[in-house]
């Protein structure tokens, strides 16, 4: 992984499962939110983007998730420029990325149907209609991948529970399983534990580590420095839309090169 400022800081090895933003900038119309940021994640790597609220972490993740087209710079997946290909090819790239938001955003359906969603929409329309008819006349049998993804977050016994009946922590765990079920190459997580209690936070962090061990590249945006230290292979410090500093976790926390990074990791106010 390489993170940093400017295109030169990004790596372009093009290895399998490499998602890379190179020199990206983005502006909602009232000033740049992200400016000249480069960040790449390889398969099996956990990259944590840390920074206070409102510095552009969510926007950066949105660019990596191919939700928004950068005003400048490129986002490539395995060397393919995602915005230089047609919409169907971009959809194929997007379908290799899993996203977990700060809020669980579960659909008004059972846990199993939520987790199965990503798998279902990847099937042909013929299969989807056949499955829908089958579920009307007979019991739902969720695919093994659904049960497997839920077991990663300790929710395998809640297959038939209505999503609306879950606690906030349980819902977020299901949201994680929903993104994991279709076996993405890269997972993007935006403040995934900011509203959770320590127990649910630990479950999610274990799941992130397990995803990395399974070869999934993971990018986590958080303002929680302790979490970054626990789960990150590498860290990028984002402030005011630019990367102040990046590198191996220990190097950033033990020996930060930038003064504002030092203040931030020591818990001082950086504004």
């Amino acid at each position, binding site marked *: 992984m390489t993170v940093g400022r400017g295109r030169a800081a990004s790596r372009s090895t093009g290895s399998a499962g490499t998602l890379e933003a190179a020199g990206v900038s983005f502006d909602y119309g009232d000033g740049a939110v992200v400016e000249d940021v480069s960040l790449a994640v390889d398969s099996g790597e956990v990259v944590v983007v840390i920074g206070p609220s409102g510095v552009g972490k969510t926007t950066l993740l949105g660019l990596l*998730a191919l*939700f928004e087209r950068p005003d400048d710079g490129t986002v490539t997946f395995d060397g393919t420029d995602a915005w230089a290909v047609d919409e169907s090819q971009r*959809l194929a790239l*997007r*379908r290799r990325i*899993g*996203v977990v*938001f700060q*809020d669980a*955003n*579960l*659909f*008004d*359906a*059972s846990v199993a*149907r939520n987790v199965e*969603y*990503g798998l279902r*929409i*990847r099937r042909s329309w013929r299969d989807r209609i056949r499955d*829908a008819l089958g*579920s*009307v006349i007979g019991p*739902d049998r969720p695919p093994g991948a659904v049960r497997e993804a839920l077991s990663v977050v300790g929710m395998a016994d809640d297959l*038939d529970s*209505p999503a609306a009946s879950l606690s906030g922590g349980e819902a977020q765990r299901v949201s994680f399983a*929903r*993104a994991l079920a*279709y076996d993405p190459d890269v997972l993007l997580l935006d403040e995934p534990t900011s509203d959770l209690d320590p127990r649910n936070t630990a479950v999610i962090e274990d799941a992130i580590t397990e995803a990395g061990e399974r070869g999934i590249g993971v990018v986590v945006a958080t303002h929680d420095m302790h979490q970054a230290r626990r789960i990150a292979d590498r860290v990028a410090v984002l402030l005011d839309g630019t990367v102040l500093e990046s590198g191996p976790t220990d190097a950033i926390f033990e020996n930060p090169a930038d003064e504002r990074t030092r203040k931030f990791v020591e818990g001082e106010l950086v504004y």
Partner: protein
Amino acid sequence: MSPCSAAATVAPLAADCLLVTPLFEFPFESVYVRSIVFVSLYVSVLAVLLSTAVSLPVALVVGFSEFPGKRLLTSLINTGMGFPSVVVGLLVLFTVSSQGPLGELDLVFTKEAMIISQFVLATPAITAISLAAVTSVDSNLRDAARALGGTRLDVALVTIKEARYGIVTAVLAGFGRAISEVGSVLIVGGNIAGADGVSKTRTLTTAIQLEARQGRYETAMILGGILVVVVLAVNALVVRLGDDGVMR
């Protein structure tokens, strides 16, 4: 009329009367009632199905895209909910009459003309209520569907599913407007029943209007009761279908 049946029409006073006669005698042939119910349901259900097929995509487009004239279109849809049905009937009659643009289809006093009329009346109601329902769906859920790899169609389907209770309400409101309609179906349908007693374009509402006008209030009341039962049954069926979809 026998004393027994006369009493039974009001209330069964004696057990033997109850055993040998119905609670009341229908003042008309059952084939007549069945054909009226059939025409009412056929016309209203088809009109509402067509309206729903048009209204949902319109609601989604108006709800989630920006285009010139969007506010005007929204105002027109809302205004359409209160459009006088008799005026709609007149406009549809003109459209299908021999001088009208659909004159060649020879639709005057047919069920098809009634369907067109009810379609025009039901569509604004279904569209407006569906629009309110789909725009009230949390935008984060649409983002989630997209983030999971959904296409525009997938996101639209998620939106419809999340808004299903509001959409069911919209469909029921449209059905209620259609099946309770008198003025426009009277104008474009003509309230015709054949010599064999089978309804051609007579609906429950137009039959009630006819019976009441001719002083047969008992018959009108019974037809009114049947209309209420039909509406309740359709509502229960649609709500049940909506509930079945909750966990799927």
